[in-house]
């Protein structure tokens, strides 16, 4: 079983994000970067499948600047087998990222692609689905549970949807994107970190992927949303209810 896990380097979700004064992007000075939380959950699931099935080839891939090596080494330390870094200085839109990943899938022929449902920077929630469609593969997004058939050739995935939990099934190969409650990712162990140094991390420039055409969605500028004022305190429940009635006129 070969599992491809795309991961993305993103600002730590706890960061107080600020927009540059000229609106050209976010301020990145002193910002810590991490593996996108949903991608980390995807990697963790791949590692659990590897453990449960007594072996699997878990391959990481990331598209990003050279420093993305940090995130790939962390992934290798957690237990992935090897990593591919497609070096790109610019941010790619979801369609372009998916087009590049399609080439990786064609080269690697994984049985399963396990990806995060969205990256917490762009929040687009598209790459996994675009990739699946471009391969004419089935997909199961927002996965909260993944179960394999006895012969390991089919998966049944429980998905978190608006009204509750849905289950879909398909024969591999296919794509699963992860939601929050699928698992809790492990920390890299010290032996894991040591082993990671010897695992293969291959770098290729983006140009080698020959993905034609420009971005299908381009970002013109960024701005901060209107700031919400708050902080007014009330002393008692009675005061609160009175104000909601007379002032806010909501009850």
């Amino acid at each position, binding site marked *: 079983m070969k599992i491809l896990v795309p991961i993305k380097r993103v600002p730590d*979700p706890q960061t*107080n*994000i600020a927009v540059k004064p000229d609106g050209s992007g*976010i301020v990145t000075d002193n910002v810590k970067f991490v593996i996108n939380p*949903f991608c980390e959950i995807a990697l963790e699931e791949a590692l659990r499948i590897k453990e449960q099935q007594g072996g699997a080839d878990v391959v990481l891939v990331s598209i990003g600047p050279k420093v993305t090596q940090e995130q790939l080494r962390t992934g290798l330390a957690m237990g992935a087998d090897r990593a591919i870094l497609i070096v790109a200085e610019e941010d790619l839109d*979801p*369609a372009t990222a998916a087009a590049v990943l399609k080439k990786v899938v064609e080269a690697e022929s994984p049985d399963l692609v396990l990806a995060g*449902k969205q990256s*917490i*920077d*762009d*929040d687009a*929630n*598209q790459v996994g*689905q*675009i990739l*699946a469609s471009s391969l004419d593969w*089935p*997909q199961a*997004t927002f996965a*909260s549970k993944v179960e394999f058939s006895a012969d390991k050739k089919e998966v049944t995935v429980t998905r978190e*949807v*608006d*009204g*509750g*939990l*849905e*289950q*879909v*099934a398909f024969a591999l190969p*296919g794509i699963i994107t992860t*939601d929050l409650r699928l698992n809790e990712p492990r920390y890299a162990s010290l032996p894991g970190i040591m082993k990671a140094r010897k695992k293969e991390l291959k770098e290729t420039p983006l140009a080698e992927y020959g993905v034609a055409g420009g*971005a*299908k*969605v*381009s*970002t*013109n*500028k*960024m*701005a*901060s*949303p209107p700031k*919400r004022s*708050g*902080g*007014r*305190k*009330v*002393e008692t*429940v*009675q005061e*609160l*209810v009175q*104000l*909601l*009635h007379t002032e*806010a006129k*909501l*009850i």
Partner: protein
Amino acid sequence: MAKVLIFIEHAHGKLPKTSLVAISAGLEVAKRNGLDTAAVVFGKGIDGIAAAAAAHGVGKVVAIDDAKLEHYVADVYAKTLAGVVKQMGSTWVVGAATAIGKDFFPRVAQLLDAGMASEITAFNDDGTIVRPTYAGNVLSTVTITTPTKVVTVRGTAFEPAPKSAAAAVEKAALPADVAGRMRFVSFNETKSDRPALTDATIVVSGGRGLKSGENFTTVLEPLVDALGAAMGASRAAVDAGFVPNDLQVGQTGKVVAPQLYVAVGISGAIQHLAGMKDSKVIVAINKDGDAPIFNVSDYGLVADLFKAVPEMADEVKKLKAH
């Protein structure tokens, strides 16, 4: 041939608010660009829904009634919608950013070689589009550069389209070649008599501070029901198993913007705020006066929720009894 196609979701024979929001967004983009609109409805036994969808201002409804569309699956629905778009030569495809919209619209975009902007909140006069990024801490202005444009719209960003005179309903056949490999297995729907989170004017959400699922029932629900509200929850409460996943409000859960949002025992993490900071009035009840939620609340009460919430439920009932 309709240039702006609006995908209409339905459940239990009804049009949810999100579908009416999608219609509004579709009507707006059509007006801005001088185009006509059609709503598209899929399913089995959908005459009633198609008729309902026709009465909110669209130019016409295209209904595909087929056993293969009875249960939503991403690959079949995507191929079907892309097929309709191609047949009609539409240049815009609009849907609500619901679990279904998010799941299959990117596939539709790929089949049409079109750019897609997810969960948009506004159309600008210059043709650019606004969407929230970084958990809503940044508003990104984007341009879809392809001739065909696909968007999902945030359910809180447009007013639901009001009722109007009924347009025609056209029945269409399932396009050829829409088969897929996905199999729908089951849907475990959470049953509730309360308003849906995304539809409600008042939302009361509980967090980790409630300490147990039982407390949601005995402590929070009386307040929820006294206010006739929908009930929501923070990620922490769902992770802890206090309540089911479909109550989660947040960056990757439901985004709500009710008239009144009451956050009980919720600290106010960035990701939770992303799901509710556009609420008209925010009330916070938390025993930690330093909780970040108080930075965004219009009325904050620093108190023990186990005392304050039952008290508030009583006060509300007294008020309503007058």
